[in-house]
């Protein structure tokens, strides 16, 4: 859908065509749900939040000035809603991985002594989630945005209020920081340059 078509759709909805809103839900629900799922790590909460996000968006559509794409606006609402929810229920992602949590800790195989073994994709993704949680707020936010939605660099830039060049460099630094965390934790081996530096 082009920007112009999107603006027309928004106009129809704010003029009273409620059913037209279903198109917005259908095309954005996957991104919204996955972002909420990533931030809450709970399917029920993610569903609740996703529903809340779309209803909020519906009632606030007249305030959406169309300066960015709907997907970007919805991302912002989702992120703020998740943050709001997490703060209110005092559930922080890093705490969910702590020993105090009731859920069993993520079991990461010790790669240091079995370098030939490869982690399964699922195990690697779980380890990556842990690495992302260890990042600074700035790095975590942009990496989650990129990894858990289909937003382009341009859209990410719009959402964060930064230019594409900054998106590019910030993402690269975030990924490097995540990879460094995984190396320090022994999940993956360091890169030859780093190995040489340790000698």
């Amino acid at each position: 859908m082009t920007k112009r078509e999107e603006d027309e759709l928004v106009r129809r909805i704010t003029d009273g065509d409620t059913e037209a809103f279903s198109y917005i839900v259908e095309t954005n629900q996957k991104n919204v749900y996955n972002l909420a799922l990533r931030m809450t790590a709970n399917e029920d909460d993610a569903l609740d939040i996703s529903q809340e996000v779309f209803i909020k968006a519906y009632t606030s559509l007249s305030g959406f000035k169309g300066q960015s794409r709907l997907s970007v606006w919805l991302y912002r609402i989702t992120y703020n809603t998740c943050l709001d929810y997490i703060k209110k229920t005092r559930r922080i992602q890093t705490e969910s991985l702590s020993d105090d949590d009731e859920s069993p800790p993520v079991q990461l195989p010790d790669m240091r002594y079995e370098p030939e073994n490869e982690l399964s994709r699922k195990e690697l993704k779980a380890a990556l989630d842990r690495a992302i949680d260890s990042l600074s707020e700035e790095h975590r936010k942009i990496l989650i945005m990129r990894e858990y939605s289909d937003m382009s660099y341009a859209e990410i830039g719009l959402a964060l209020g930064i230019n594409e060049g900054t998106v590019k460099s910030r993402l690269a630094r975030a990924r490097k920081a995540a990879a460094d965390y995984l190396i320090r934790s022994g999940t993956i081996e360091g890169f030859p340059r780093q190995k040489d530096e340790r000698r």
Partner: protein
Amino acid sequence: MKNCEYYEELISSLIDGEITETEKLELEEHLEECTSCRELYNTYSALFGRADLAEPPKELLPNVMAAVRDLPAGRKSGGGKKTYIYIRYIAAAAACLALAIFAVPRLLPGADLFNNKKAYETNESIDPSYVADGAAPAGAADRSDEAELRDSEQESVKEDDIKPEEAEPHEAPNALMPHSGYGETTDLPIFIIYDTLPDYVSADGSETLEDGSLLIKADADTVRRLVNDGYVFENAATPDSSMPEEAAVIFVP
């Protein structure tokens, strides 16, 4: 000669498909010569590049559409009011409450019915079952509904008996986060912002609330910018369904 840090950024961009042809050729040449960057590329390919996205539950779309169709006219798109997903259940609960109040008056001894109703209307998270906590006064069972109402009007309820923010939040299916509790701080629509204030919202002249949060007045332009940035306001006190001309920002550092 560019260092590996430059190519690390290109590797990240390549993973995302956000790289020009020229940059791609440049990177490919470098990867042929640099073992470290080649291993970095392999690692990034395994780690990054769009996690397998989960399919949203099938009920998400129909639930949302059912909720927006049920919104009162004043809250339709363009209303700008925060709408809790469980408003529908609150409406049903309100009907049950009315039934409980007028059909079983013995459960509400000493309760000021009008105060109860007022508290219930201004806070959507109140579970109507809280009104059943009181014990029936002696002889209440033999009295007419009208007599019960008259007596209850005459008796005031201590504010401590009804504290919307302490009442059990309504546990409707898929109920969401509890009411913020700031609804009685101001009659204005409220934006609640945590940690970092947008740069166009100034804390100058703000009022510090009991819990340490700041109450900041927002003008129409600020309201529009906040909504455009994905912040949604709550507090249904404002009857007008249009975009508010002013609002309050509750900043929770």
